[in-house]
């Protein structure tokens, strides 16, 4: 019964969405306030209906209702409660429902927080947002109904893919979707602005927080996925250049470019049409990502719903929205006149360079991702494009980006001098070069990757520090002034440092990693990278829904015990699937990563040990980037812009701070 109500609520939401597309759009065109005002309650109703629908599906999963086909295919009574809940989105149908839930959440947020938007812009934004909703309701209801029943309910379910039964991966999709779908707001704002024919600093100020939020969530989602791959897949790889990873990485790069170009629109009223184009493309890449994951056209490890029919449907959605938006763009972009005047050496120009590097690097990832398809369809060759290509073709862009970033970030608006900025940055530059030389001297005969990473990390972090310190002016009391700087300044410094930390960590890990593969006898110690490991015991353990071969490994250094590790090999009987659970000793500067393999004919066990320097810094840097985004998001100027009218009404006579 609840399942049917959930299905019904979803259909109702689709109908409400249709109304929300048409009525406010006509209202905005004719300037009828009543018609425009329909958007608000409609957005609320949509959100509540989809939330109910999602709750109904979750209820079916939690109570293990095996009359629902989706629950049968993805759940099992013996599964822990957490994974019963996360199982809701651990499959195609349920994850699409989460997708629209987040879409309506963003829509309703625009209705809640958009109080001071011009009414016509608000009505149009909500209308476009709802149009995206209509497309995806149609997709779910016509091709991927999560509420489908079984004619004969089985006694138990087929269990969730064991790889997905993991805390890291459980929350990877929601964050990723918050990012993907969050970019729909930027898209809606861009299309609404094109319909209005007006883009100004205020528009950029409204659109930037949404992009910032989406980018932040995307950062966290990608980091979670990468962290999961690191500890779950058994050899400590953290990025595979898999088509689906690329699908999330392209929108991230474009969103990062959009964030920076929106700054130029906001402060200098330039780059308007480019920013609109980026906003359209960012969401376009989100849709392309959805297409890649769900059509199975480009085979990938994640493709959990290879269904041509669904692929065609998403391709159609992509074509309609991108085609429509780009036609509108071609017709209207000319009207966006730039106003700011600036010299080729200025903050504006630096941000243009930032955009070029980010957009072209996203393009490289895109070409590499679809090239196997091009090869097969046009060249008639079966090709692979893997990590070696991306490492060669993509990395140079990031290196250049890192090199110019600290200088560009400190150039003044309108007109600047590179020499003057470099003089301010001479200390970080000298220190970074010195550290690079030191790293080069300490490592003998290895690749230059490590030292380059050291330079980049030091240059970016110290450059950000000098930048924020220089904002405190001259004279005494600079520390106090530092604390009072706008949050956006802090956000910039923290996010740029995070990028430096991640670059440093990736380069360091790749350059200085050590690996050891051997047959270990129980009780016989062996050495890896200065650590002593002893395989003490291997035994069979029964888990809630799996069997495990669990080893006990003692990790010590110079005779001192550091920790006892328990690497596992699990078999999930319902899905007939083995997984490895690596045991990791996390350290500040390094991880020791141990994997247990098969028992050997002549006694002993295959054991793999990795020494992974700086591993946690990769995700630490990503978290820093996300925190930087959060700081910028909490900056006062957005709150003033967003809550000005309300505050004026409620708190007249009371100082705002």
């Amino acid at each position, binding site marked *: 019964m609840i399942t049917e109500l959930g299905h019904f609520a979803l259909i109702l939401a689709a109908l409400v969405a249709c109304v929300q597309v048409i009525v406010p759009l006509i209202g905005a065109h004719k300037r009828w306030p009543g018609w425009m005002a329909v958007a608000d309650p409609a957005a609320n109703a949509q959100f509540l209906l989809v939330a109910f629908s999602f709750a109904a599906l979750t209820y079916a999963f939690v109570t293990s209702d095996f009359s629902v086909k989706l629950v049968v295919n993805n759940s099992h009574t013996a599964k822990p409660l957490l994974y019963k809940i996360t199982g809701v989105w651990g499959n195609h149908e349920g994850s699409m429902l989460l997708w629209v839930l987040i879409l309506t959440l963003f829509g309703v947020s625009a209705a809640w927080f958009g109080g001071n938007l011009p009414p016509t812009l608000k009505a149009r934004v909500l209308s476009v947002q709802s149009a995206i909703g209509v497309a995806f309701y149609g997709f779910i209801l016509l091709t991927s109904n999560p509420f489908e029943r079984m004619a004969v309910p089985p006694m138990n379910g087929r269990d969730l893919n064991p790889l997905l039964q993991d805390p890291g991966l459980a929350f990877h999709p929601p964050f990723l979707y918050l990012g993907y779908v969050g970019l729909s707001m930027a898209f809606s704002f861009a299309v609404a602005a094109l319909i209005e024919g007006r883009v100004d600093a205020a528009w950029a100020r409204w659109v930037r927080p949404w992009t910032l939020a989406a980018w932040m969530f995307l950062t966290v989602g990608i980091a979670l996925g990468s962290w999961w791959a690191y500890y779950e897949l058994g050899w400590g790889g953290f990025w595979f250049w898999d088509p689906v990873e690329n699908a999330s990485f392209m929108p991230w790069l474009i969103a990062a470019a959009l964030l920076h170009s929106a700054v130029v629109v906001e402060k200098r009223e330039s780059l308007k049409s480019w920013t609109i184009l980026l906003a359209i493309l960012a969401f376009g890449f989100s849709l392309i990502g959805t297409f890649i994951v769900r059509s199975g056209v480009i085979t990938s490890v994640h493709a959990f719903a290879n269904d041509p029919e669904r692929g065609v449907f998403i391709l159609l959605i992509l074509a309609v929205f991108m085609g429509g938006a780009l036609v509108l763009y071609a017709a209207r972009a000319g009207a966006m006149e730039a106003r700011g005047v600036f010299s080729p050496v200025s903050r504006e120009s630096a941000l243009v360079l930032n955009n070029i590097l980010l957009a072209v690097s996203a393009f*490289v990832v895109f070409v590499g991702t679809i090239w196997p398809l091009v090869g097969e369809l046009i060249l008639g060759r079966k090709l692979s494009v893997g990590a070696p290509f991306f490492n060669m073709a993509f990395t140079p862009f990031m290196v250049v980006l890192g090199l110019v970033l600290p200088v560009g970030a400190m150039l003044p608006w309108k007109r600047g001098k590179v020499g003057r900025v470099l003089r301010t940055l001479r200390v970080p530059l000298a220190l970074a070069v010195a550290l690079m030389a030191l790293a080069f001297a300490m490592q003998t005969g290895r690749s230059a990757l490590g030292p380059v990473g050291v330079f980049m990390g030091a240059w970016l972090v110290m450059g950000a520090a000098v930048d924020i310190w220089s904002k405190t002016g001259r004279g005494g009391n600079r520390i106090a002034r530092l604390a009072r700087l706008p949050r956006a300044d802090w956000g910039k410094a923290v996010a740029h440092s995070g990028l430096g930390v991640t670059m440093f960590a990736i380069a360091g890990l790749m350059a200085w990693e050590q690996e050891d*593969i051997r047959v270990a006898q129980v009780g016989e110690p062996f050495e890896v990278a200065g650590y002593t490991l002893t395989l003490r015991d291997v035994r069979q353990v029964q888990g809630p829904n799996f069997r495990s071969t669990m080893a006990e490994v003692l990790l010590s250094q110079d005779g001192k015990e550091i920790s006892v590790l328990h690497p596992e090999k699990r078999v999930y009987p319902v899905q007939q*699937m*083995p997984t490895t659970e690596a045991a990791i000793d996390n350290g500040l500067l390094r991880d020791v990563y141990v994997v247990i393999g098969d028992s050997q004919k002549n006694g002993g066990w295959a054991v793999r040990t990795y020494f992974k320097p700086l591993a946690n810094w990769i995700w630490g840097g990503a978290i820093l980037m996300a925190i930087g985004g959060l700081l910028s998001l909490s900056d006062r100027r957005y709150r003033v812009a967003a809550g000005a009218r309300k505050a*004026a009404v409620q708190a007249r006579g009371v100082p705002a701070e």
Partner: protein
Amino acid sequence: MKRLALILSLALAMFAMPALAVQPDEILDDPKLEQRARDISEGLRCLVCRNENIDASNAELARDLRLLVRERLLEGDSNEEVVDFIVARYGEFVLLKPTMTGGNWLLWAAGPLMLLFALGAGAVYLRGRARAQEPAQQDLSEGEQARLREILDE
């Protein structure tokens, strides 16, 4: 649907096999030769897996390929000869780093060409901005001024 689920779980299973890719018994005694084998392996695709090189894969076929690579190296082949040998047998699908032959040059040139184009377009735009006249400051409308006061007064 059942078949689909089976294919999916198989595909995922291949990827997720306990990743004891290189087995202890495969490792060559000569560390230099072994390192070369590892370097070559990282550029070769496991044909039955999804986007995985033979060095990290646990599939039987990947093991066969790893052994084949080591066999050729022991015979005294150079790295290129080993790769050519494998490509001759399994086709260029096995290469994770595509060659630059035929239409593939476009794949490799796409990034640099796009960069040149973007830099050119950017330069034209920046020149335009540097030469443009600062537009006459438009006066705020009545409503906008009221709104400005409202915000500033807070």
